[in-house]
C-alpha cells in the first residue's frame, strides 16, 4: 500500500510539471501584453513599462519565468497581483467560499445522484425508470447558466420567495443550497445514469441471487451486495468531478454573486493577471491529482479483490 502510494506520487510529478507548464505557456506566451494594458488607451511611459516588466519578471525568457514560478511555488509563494496583493492572500479568502459551495454541491450530487440512480436501476424498464432517464437527459441538456437563471427566477423574490437571489453570507448553508444544486445538476444527472446502469446490470448477478436466496434482509442485500459493487464506476466519476466542480463554479459564482475562486479567476482573466490565473489553476490541478489518487485507493475499499502491493 505505502509503496503503491509512493509510486503514484512519483508518477504525478511529470504530470504536474507538464500541466503547470502548459497553463503557464497558455497564460504568458499567448498574444497580449497585460502591463501595456494597465495604461489602457493612453500612451504608455516606456521607462515605467520596462520597470514594471522587470518587477514582475516578465522581461526574462519564458523558461526562466517558469523556473522562477516553480521555485516560488516550492515556498508556497504564488506571486503578487498587479496591485501588489499576494495571490495566496486572495486565494486564502476565495477558496474557503468555493470549498463550502463545492461541499454542499458534492453532497447533493452524491445523495440525489446515487439515490435516483438506485431508484431507477431497481425499476429498470418501468415507468419510474423512464421518468428518471428523461429527467436526467433534460438536466444534462439545459446549460448550467440557463438553469441558474430559471431556478433563480422561480425560487427567489420574483417567484416563490424561498431564497435570496444572490448569496450574501456563504456560511449560511440555506443560501448556498440553490447555487449548489445548479452547480451539481449536470454531474448529478451523470451520477444517476451511471448508477442506474450498473445497478440494473448487477441486479442480474449470481451473487445477488445468492444473497437473496440465503435470506439476507433486503436492506443488507441492497446496501452491501448491490450498492457496493455498483459504486466503482460512480466513484471514478465522482473523484474526477470534484476538481471540475471547483473549476466549473466560475459560472455559478458569477450568477449568484459568490465571492469564490471562480470570480477571482474571472477577474484575473479580465485584468490579465497571470499570477492569479496560474495560481488558481495550479491549486485546481493539485486537487485533481489528489482526488484521482484517492479514487484509486478507494477501489481497494470497495472491491477487496483489488490489492495494492
Amino acid at each position, binding site marked *: 500500500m505505502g509503496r503503491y502510494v509512493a509510486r503514484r506520487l512519483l508518477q504525478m510529478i*511529470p*504530470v*504536474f510539471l*507538464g*500541466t503547470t507548464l*502548459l*497553463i503557464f505557456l*497558455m*497564460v504568458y506566451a*499567448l*498574444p*497580449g501584453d497585460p502591463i501595456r494594458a494597465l495604461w489602457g488607451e493612453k500612451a504608455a511611459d516606456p521607462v515605467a513599462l520596462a520597470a514594471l516588466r522587470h518587477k514582475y519578471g516578465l522581461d526574462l525568457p519564458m523558461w526562466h519565468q517558469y523556473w522562477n514560478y516553480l521555485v516560488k511555488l516550492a515556498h508556497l509563494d504564488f506571486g503578487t497581483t498587479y496591485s501588489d496583493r499576494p495571490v495566496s492572500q486572495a486565494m486564502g479568502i476565495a477558496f474557503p467560499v468555493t470549498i463550502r459551495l463545492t461541499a454542499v454541491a458534492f453532497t447533493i450530487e452524491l445523495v440525489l445522484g446515487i439515490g435516483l440512480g438506485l431508484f431507477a436501476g431497481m425499476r429498470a424498464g418501468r415507468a419510474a425508470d423512464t421518468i428518471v432517464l428523461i429527467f436526467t*437527459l*433534460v438536466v*444534462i*441538456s*439545459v*446549460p*448550467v*447558466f*440557463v438553469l441558474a*437563471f*430559471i431556478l433563480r*427566477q422561480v425560487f427567489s423574490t*420574483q417567484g416563490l420567495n424561498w431564497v435570496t437571489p444572490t448569496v450574501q453570507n456563504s456560511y449560511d448553508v440555506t443560501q448556498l443550497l440553490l447555487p449548489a444544486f445548479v452547480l451539481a445538476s449536470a454531474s448529478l444527472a451523470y451520477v444517476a445514469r451511471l448508477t442506474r446502469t450498473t445497478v440494473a446490470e448487477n441486479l442480474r448477478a449470481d451473487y445477488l441471487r445468492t444473497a437473496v436466496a440465503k435470506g439476507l434482509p433486503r436492506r443488507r442485500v441492497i446496501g452491501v451486495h448491490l450498492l457496493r459493487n455498483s459504486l466503482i464506476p460512480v466513484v471514478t466519476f465522482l473523484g474526477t468531478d470534484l*476538481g*471540475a466542480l*471547483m*473549476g*466549473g463554479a*466560475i*459560472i455559478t459564482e*458569477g450568477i449568484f454573486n459568490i465571492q469564490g475562486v471562480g470570480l477571482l*479567476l*474571472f477577474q484575473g*482573466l*479580465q485584468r*490579465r493577471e497571470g499570477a492569479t*490565473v496560474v495560481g*488558481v*489553476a495550479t491549486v*485546481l*490541478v493539485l486537487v*485533481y*491529482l489528489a482526488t484521482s489518487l484517492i479514487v484509486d485507493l478507494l477501489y481497494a475499499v470497495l472491491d477487496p479483490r483489488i490489492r495494492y502491493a
Partner: protein
Amino acid sequence: MPDTITAADAPGAPTPPVEATGGIPVKAEKPRSLWSDAWYDLRRNPIFVISGVLILIILTVAVAPGLFTGTSPRDGDLVHHFLSNPKLTHFFKDDWFGYDNQGRSVYARTVFGARASVIVGVLTTLLSTVVGGLVGMLAGYFGGWIDAVLSRLVDVFFGIPFLLGSLVVLNAFSERSPLIVSLSLAFLGWTQTARVMRGSVISVKQADYVHAAQALGAGTPRILFRHILPNAVAPVIVVSTISLGAYISAEATLSFLGIGLQDPTVSWGIDIDSATAVIRNDPHVLFFPAIALSITVLAFIMLGDAVRDALDPKLR
C-alpha cells in the same frame, strides 16, 4: 432481436464481418457486420428517430435560415421596444417570440443563432476526433515508449479544467471567430477521444486479421487505416456524438461569459447574456434562445445515447 434481414440491409457496410472484434453473436449462416447490425437497431429505436429528425431540422435551419425568416437578425427597430411580448399565435412571423430590448426580432435571432452553434459544435468535434483519434491510435498500436510519452501528454492536457483552459486560451484573442472558438475548445477536448481510441486499438490489434495483414507484408499505414481503424472506431463515434452536444453547450457558456463569440455573430449564448439584463420584465428574451440551445444539445446527446446502445455489444 428478430433475425429477418433483407439484402437491402447489407450494402453500404464498409467493414468485413466482425467475428474477431469480440462480443457480437454473429450467426454463422447470416453474417452481419457491426454497422449493418447497428443500423438495423437504430431504425427501430424511437430515441434515434426523434433525435435524428430534430438534428435534421436544426441542420436545415443552420444551413438556410432564410427559409424560416425573411428578417435580418441585426435589424433593430426601437418602435418594437415597448411592444415586446411574444405573440404566440403569429407562427413564423417576426413577432412570434417578441422583440428584444433593441427592437430586434427574437424569432429571427433564434433562427440565425443555430448556425454559429452548429459550426462550432461540428468543427470542434471534427478537430478533436481527428487529433485525439490519431494520438490514440499511434499510442495504442505502437505501445512502448511512444505510448508512454503520448499517454503522459494526454494526462497533462486532461488535468487542466476544461472551462478554465478554454477561457485562458480565448482570452488571448481579441477577435474571436467561430474557428478560433472551435480551435480553443478542441485544444483541450481531444484527450477523451485519444483515451477511448487507445483502449479500442489495443483490444483490436491482437486480432488474427491484423497478424495476417502483418504477415502478408502490409505497410503500417495500411494496417492502421484499413484493418484497425474500421474495427476500432465505434466507441470513438459514440464519444464524438455525445461531445458534439457538450461543445455546443460550451460555446454558449463561453459566449455567455463574454469570452466566446462576439457580437456581429449571432449566437444563442450572446443573446442569453444580453437577455439577463432584462430578465425581470421580459423573460421571453432569455427563454427562446435558451430553449433552442437546450433542444439542440438534447438532440445530440440523445443521438449519442442511441448510437451507443446500438454499437455496444455488452447491452445486447
